[in-house]
């Protein structure tokens, strides 16, 4: 992915840092940047972009791929520094800090750390010490990439300077732009399919583009769709998400993640029920045994985490879309059955819990019902959910309408039914407002 689209904010930060580095009178406002996101979202490409800028401006830069430098981060740093300066002291051999200080005496330096999530405790400590001891040097600019969040809480001087940015998939417009800029432009219909399938996830886009261009696959035909899905499964899921998992465990994690991709917000209860209903072979011996499941998946894949905004566990959006796509295309009946199950379960939970939690369950119930419009029970189910929504007291109802208005994904899956739903909500909202006005 050598083409840059939709990364303007990140590039602006980098440009600004370079301008400051080159100008002795200015200070770098963001001396330490961390790019976060799933594999294939474009972190490494951003680092490469920085490296390219260094080459263009002849600034020395150190590139440490932690995943590749598992043996000795310090050694990697020192070795690279030696390319720019004449250091041969024993202190420098042992201390990357000293080596970097020597280099910094010559002028601005850029350090790039990729795959920081792979760092073990010792490696993190080495990086932490290095950044801490060099944090006061105004000529140092550091960019890191990681799948996991970076906090450096123990190193306050680093934490204060760290600016983190989460990389998102492309939106439709940027995806179009990205596809247009390819060497071999694709037809609009195919571009549309690529976006529908990948939801702007760069790694998945590239897999599809390569398959379409190099293997001449047509995503409009069923046989080629199967091949494409197989490629996405292999190159995105197996080679990236599940790359660190033992072969014998891959099927387990694949199934679990695929299931947990369905709910936009999940909890332990939903996780257990999903597994026991749809993959009973993964069933654990007791409820409590599911307690470790989120942590196990996170440790192994980095794609499941607690999402504060959604107040639930969620699989990272780009990966979630791929998992859902695969199942929807390969096993549609199972796909719809899971949505149907979640629509019912969320509705049931909404009936059992109070307050804002109930509103959330209702919204999720509506989402899963709308994801299954082909179901023979769809109309009935939709009516039931809407009735529950309309029966809410004014405050929770207002909460529902506010959240609904901001929920683009839900509105998209409602498709042709959106107008009807919106109209019902508006009518009820007006009635509430009228009632309030009368009072």
């Amino acid at each position, binding site marked *: 992915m050598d083409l840059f689209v939709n990364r303007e904010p990140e590039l602006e930060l980098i440009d600004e840092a370079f301008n400051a580095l080159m100008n002795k009178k200015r200070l770098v406002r963001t001396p330490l940047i961390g790019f976060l996101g799933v594999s294939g979202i474009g972190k490494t490409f951003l680092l490469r972009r920085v490296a390219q800028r260094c080459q263009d401006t002849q600034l020395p830069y150190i590139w440490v791929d932690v995943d590749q430098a598992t043996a000795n981060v310090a050694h990697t740093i020192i070795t690279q520094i030696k390319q720019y300066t004449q250091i041969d002291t024993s202190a420098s051999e042992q201390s990357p800090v000293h080596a970097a200080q020597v280099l910094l005496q010559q002028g601005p330096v850029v350090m790039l750390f990729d795959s920081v999530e792979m760092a073990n405790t010792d490696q993190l400590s080495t990086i932490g010490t290095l950044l801490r001891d060099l944090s006061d040097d105004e000529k140092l600019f550091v960019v890191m990439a990681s799948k996991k969040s970076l906090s450096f809480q123990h190193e306050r001087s680093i*934490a204060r300077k*760290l600016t983190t940015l989460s990389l998102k998939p492309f939106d439709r417009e940027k995806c179009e732009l990205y596809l247009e800029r390819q060497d071999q432009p694709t037809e609009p219909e195919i571009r549309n399919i690529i976006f529908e399938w990948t939801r702007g996830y760069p790694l998945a886009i590239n897999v599809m583009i390569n398959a379409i261009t190099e293997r001449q696959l047509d995503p409009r035909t069923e046989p080629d769709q199967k091949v494409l899905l197989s490629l996405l499964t292999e190159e995105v899921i197996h080679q990236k998400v599940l790359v660190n998992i033992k072969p014998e465990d891959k099927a387990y994690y694949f199934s679990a993640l695929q299931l947990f991709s369905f709910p936009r917000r999940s909890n332990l209860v939903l996780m257990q029920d999903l597994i026991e209903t749809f993959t009973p072979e993964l069933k654990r011996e*007791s409820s409590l*045994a599911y*307690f470790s499941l989120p*942590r*196990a998946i996170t*440790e*192994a894949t980095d794609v499941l985490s607690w999402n504060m905004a959604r107040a639930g566990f969620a699989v990272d959006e780009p990966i979630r879309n791929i998992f859902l796509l695969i199942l929807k295309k390969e096993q549609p009946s199972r796909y719809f059955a899971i949505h149907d199950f979640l629509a019912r379960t969320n509705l049931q939970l909404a009936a*059992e819990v109070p307050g804002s939690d109930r509103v959330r369950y209702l919204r999720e119930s509506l989402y899963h019902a709308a994801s299954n419009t082909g179901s023979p029970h769809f109309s009935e189910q939709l009516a039931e959910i809407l009735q529950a929504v309309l029966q809410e007291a004014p405050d929770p109802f207002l909460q529902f309408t506010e959240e609904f208005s901001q929920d683009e994904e839900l509105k998209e899956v409602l498709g042709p039914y959106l107008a009807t739903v919106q109209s019902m909500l508006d009518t009820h909202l007006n009635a509430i407002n009228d009632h309030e006005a009368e009072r």
Partner: protein
Amino acid sequence: MMYKQQHIDHFIGRSQEISTFVHWLTNPISPWILYIHDAAEEANKKGGVGKTWLLRRCAELTRQRRQDTTAVVVIDFFNVGDRDGILLAEKIMTNLQEIYPVWSPSTFTEAIQQYRIEERQIADSGSSESAARDIIFAALVEDLHLLNEHLAKTQKTLVVFFDTFELIEQNPGVAVLRQSQTFPDNYQLERMKVVIAGRNKLDWTHPNWIGREQEVQVMPLAPFSLQEMQEYVKAELIYDFLPQSRQAHALYERTEGRPILIGLAIDVLNNRIQTIDDLISVAQDKFEAYLVPQVNRLENPLNWVILFMAHVYHRFNIPIFESILQSVALDSAIQTINRETLLSILPQLSFVRQAGSSEDFVLHDEMRRLVTRYCWEVQDPDQRFRKAISSRVIEYYEQELTHIPNEQQRQIFIVETLYHRLYVDLDDGLPYFQQHFYSALRLRNTSFARLLFQEVQKFSSLLSPAQLNDLHYAEAVLLRTEENVSAALEILHRLKNTADPQWYEENQPLVLTQEGRCYQRQSKFLEATNSFMQCLEIQRSRGDELQCAHLLNNLGVIFRRSSQFATALKYYEESIALYKKLGRQSDYATALNGSSTVYRLQGKTEEALRRCKIAWRIRRDLFREDKVSEVQIGLSLDTLGRNYLDAGNIINAEQYFKEAFDIYLRANYKGGIATIYNRFGLVQLAKGELESAREWFARAQHASQEIDAEQYIDSLNQQGEICIQLQKKKEATVFFEQAITYARRAIDYYQQVENLIGLAKALDPLEQGERIQQVLQEAEDIATRESYFNLLGQIEQTRGEISYYSKEYSTAFLHFARYCHHMAIYNATEFKVAVRQVVDALLGIPTADVPLIAQELLTYWSTQQLDTKYPEFMLAFGEIDNLMEV
């Protein structure tokens, strides 16, 4: 690390409150109690304002700055054990001993050890948990007497800090040793100060606090000010945070200055979960709900611990954690928190409290509420995970309960087990509650019963109407056992009026029995009789002979106490017959003993002695068979002594009292010992040895203080009476006034009236005539309301005597006539005595006045239509009228 705790040495803010505390501590005339509570009025704004931190800081400051002059003890009612008067006293003593190694609470330690040995047999000993507590208290007072001297000499003060008072605010009596003591217990230490932190304002209408405003200095605690929040944020946040910035104001608005929320916000920011701008974009009313669920990030195992702690709730330690973890599938790749790491991390969490020196931890109660509301309810809406955790905890407790030698600890574990049993399954937990609750009440272990009750109360919203009625009934029984009979009656009446008909029909006998016992305790004999009679009718229709026997025995006691001896005997006889039929030997002996007292009061000494001796014999046999304690034999010996004393056989009486005394001494039965001191006083009175009698009553007073209210009041009354006889009337008033105060506190109307009469007799009619009338009027009002005919008679006798000595004979004899009238209703024996006394009085007035007064007496009797029913009066005064016509 997340959730980092601010160190006590780097305490932030609260300078004004600390200054108030220091001033309170050092000011010799400040009230001895400092009460800190949330300034907020709304319940949902309370909690998490930093009371615990302030309290700990104050304790730490006291330790640091006043090491030479103060001893510090910190108690947290969050710990179940701290809510038990005995454990609490033990804890305070242990701390005191550490501070004063030269002092040793040896008597107290011995009493505790004895208590531990005997506690499982308390029921059989005829004693009770409350009596055991009184024994421990007496021992404690003895030890503290020495410490008091030491404190005075060294000018040292004991400062006790009580946290989480809201957990016992409804029943602060659970944390004191003696039932009659108010909270906080001062253990009779003269140099003691107390700081209490509670969520709510003090309720000055609560019996514990009535009239005590002068003892307490109140300090409302508001959340952090903006400046304090800024100090806190500056110290903890790793990023630059500009004071007075828009962000600072917005964060303050959203956290409302509550340290617990500020702490969580800092964690979110430090962990880069959100930026400050993201955080303050959340609306204020949603802020709490937005912030707290970060604990749901289960990828951090520390959050597991917080979630577990929020549910496990009472205590959390490594074995419990490991027990829960046994059920959590731990994938080999996962490195979970090890024991050492956990032990080092937990005390550093700002919302975790460590229980004393043990390795038990508890979550701050406000944090527990937040985690339960915003994490568990989201994570586990149908409670299956929490139930699974509870099941593991139950297993842990059950395992522990098999080898806990300490009864107190066992009780705490039972309380904690109860919570989890109820959580897993109400239908399993409620029988468990009933089993332990009623067993505790049988032992009069009200502290344990109260703790059990508090746990069930937490589930009241989940109970069915019938289960809720059972719970209300249990509360009434508990309150009655705690001697709070008015509150018990209120609940029983509510049950009668509002419980569903089916439940009430099934449980009516229980409710009526409790109601009767409450009335009996209040000496409301008519109401008590009514309740027992209704109950008796039901039990007869149900054919429950044992319950009938108990009720009949109770009725016997009531009629005996109201001196309706014939009726009393009738009920005793019926109860005796039933007990005999049912083979209930111990109950049979008790009823026989009761009937013996009736015969004694009737002057039927031989019948009384026979019954008493049979009961004595049965009890001796049962004692040999190890079926009752020796104290039961002592009770029979006491009754025997009373019989001999009333019969004028002072030597035998004294002998039996001595034997009873020996038994009570052996059993360390303090209440019994005090009773026998009073008996020895009566023996001396019978011998005419007033001074010696007075000494015994004084000894009884000392021995019964805080141990047996009835004997205590009786000893005061007897001393007052002796003072009157010795013409030391001023001294007498002191005794009677003291007795009246105690009788009011114990809600014993009968003794209250007795002593009001005594007081009237002790006051000088010339100087305090008006007060005498007031006192007698108060006595008459109560006696009329409660139908105490003998006391009404005594009131009229007293009024008559006052007029008699003023030579207002017409008025005097009108009162005497009323005296006889009341005694006629009361019983035949006392009526005869009354007539004889009035005859003597009549013959004491000038001869010329006799015929007129005699005529007035006869006219009164006829006008009241008493002449037919009680002809003895007409005969006596008709004869005088006739004979004096010479």
